[in-house]
């Protein structure tokens, strides 16, 4: 693998040069085949769709360039609300879910009441459709009139999404903790670490790493579900698109909103892939 300093590797043999040339030709051939077949398949799909009798009408109603440009600024502004919302919720959900998961796993007897509360919380909020949680919190909390309960719609929406997603993410993290082989607990305790030290230094880092892909998946799902706060009257991207559609009878604005959601989820998906590959490489799996 490594060469000693000062010595250069011997020139490749004639046979090796042939092999290298063959590999280069094969690479070129593969790229050409891939490109051509992609063009053919995509072209065919485009042709089938655009040659359909209803296409001109669909293009005008769903993909009108004019309406896309017209609706863009309002949706762009409204989308910032979605971004702020999911950023806020992600930041609160992680520690909340971690706490719930740990409470459910830890055997300390003093934790018994909290374990019960944590179990009820995850059961209840995983059971209720998120849109229902949003409505119950959005309309119910202000009606309570309790001092200290936020009245801003943004925070009511954030609380609702946090409650719902906290339950999901807590279960994902708990599954991660339970997926770590008991021998890791034994090794940590045998080293003299306390239960808490073993949990924090040995178990959780591995658990979180194992569940990063499903965790990120939940976050992608959360980004989309920020659209649900439109039901309590917040003007986010979907609502802005609906307003435009109601005024113009053109659905293009909805497609623009969809595009926004797609664009923010792609980086997250790539980031997840990168994280996964990095940890595999670090541990010598690649």
């Amino acid at each position, binding site marked *: 693998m490594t060469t000693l300093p000062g010595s250069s590797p011997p020139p490749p043999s004639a046979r090796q040069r042939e092999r290298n040339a063959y590999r280069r030709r094969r690479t070129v051939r593969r790229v050409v085949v891939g490109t051509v077949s992609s063009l053919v398949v995509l072209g065919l799909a485009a042709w089938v769709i655009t040659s359909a009798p209803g296409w001109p009408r669909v293009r005008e109603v769903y993909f009108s360039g004019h309406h896309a440009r017209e609706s863009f600024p309002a949706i762009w502004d409204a989308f910032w609300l979605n971004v702020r919302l999911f950023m806020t919720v992600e930041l609160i959900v992680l520690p909340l879910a971690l706490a719930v998961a740990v409470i459910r796993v830890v055997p300390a007897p003093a934790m018994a009441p909290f374990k019960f509360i944590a179990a009820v919380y995850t059961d209840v909020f995983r059971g209720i459709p998120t849109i229902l949680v949003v409505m119950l919190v959005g309309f119910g909390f202000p009606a309570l009139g309790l001092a200290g309960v936020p009245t801003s719609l943004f925070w009511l929406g954030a609380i609702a999404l946090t409650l719902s997603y906290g339950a999901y993410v807590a279960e994902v993290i708990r599954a991660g903790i339970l997926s770590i082989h008991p*021998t*890791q607990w*034994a*090794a940590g305790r*045998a080293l*003299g*670490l306390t239960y808490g030290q073993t949990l924090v230094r040995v178990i959780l880092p591995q658990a979180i790493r194992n569940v990063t892909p499903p965790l990120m998946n939940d976050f992608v799902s959360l980004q989309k579900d920020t659209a649900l706060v439109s039901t309590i009257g917040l003007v986010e991207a979907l609502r802005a698109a609906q307003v435009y559609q109601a005024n113009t009878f053109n659905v293009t604005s909805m497609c623009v909103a969809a595009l926004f959601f797609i664009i923010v989820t792609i980086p997250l998906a790539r980031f997840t892939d990168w994280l996964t590959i990095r940890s595999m490489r*670090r*541990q*010598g799996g690649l």
Partner: protein
Amino acid sequence: MLRIRALRKSFGDHVVLDGIDLDVARGEVVCLIGASGSGKSTLLRCIDMLEETDDGDIHLGDLELTDPAIDQNRARARIAMVFQAFNLFPHMTVMQNLTLGPRRVKQVPHREAEARARELLARVGLEAKAYAYPDSLSGGQQQRVALIRAVAMDPELLLLDEVTSALDPLLVTEVLDVIRELAREGRTIVMATHEMDFARECADRIVFLSGGRIIESGPPEQVFTAPRDQRTAQFLARHTARR
């Protein structure tokens, strides 16, 4: 130093340890031999308080390990255990694996813990692997790291649970070499093993277990050449004939 009296342990109806009496003196190397399921691993796990015992006492010095009220964390700082499957922490480098215990349990300063780890790595010929992750090491290298991770805690008692069973024969030697050196340093070691040649060479005493009882206990030469019990003779005949 280690004193075990009338120790009993069952899993459900299955009696694994059926009245074990064993004394280990400071600096003694005791090899537990016996067929799989004879109770060797369970005995070691009971000593390290990883299993709750049903009856009997275990004392380490003046500390009763079978007392449910003792501070297990402090007691464990005096005992170190190495497992068959290495059990290194896969998300940490070799260096982090070696310094975690000293830093977090014994409050050794970071730099000091690293210096000590480096010294131990040099002794087992793995200086170059300080910043590698465990999965990139061979089984033998991983087990050598696990051994010095245990030694880094300066334990009074070292428990080795079939540390070579998961290794292929070529790698067994490099791990046994490390254990041999630890034995020479005068460490107190109780090890469960299937390596009969090694047990014969390095142990001060051989303890043969069968069915959760100590059938025979004595110096290696006596046990291997003139076993007193029929069952010991049969076991040894089977296990030495294979080589």
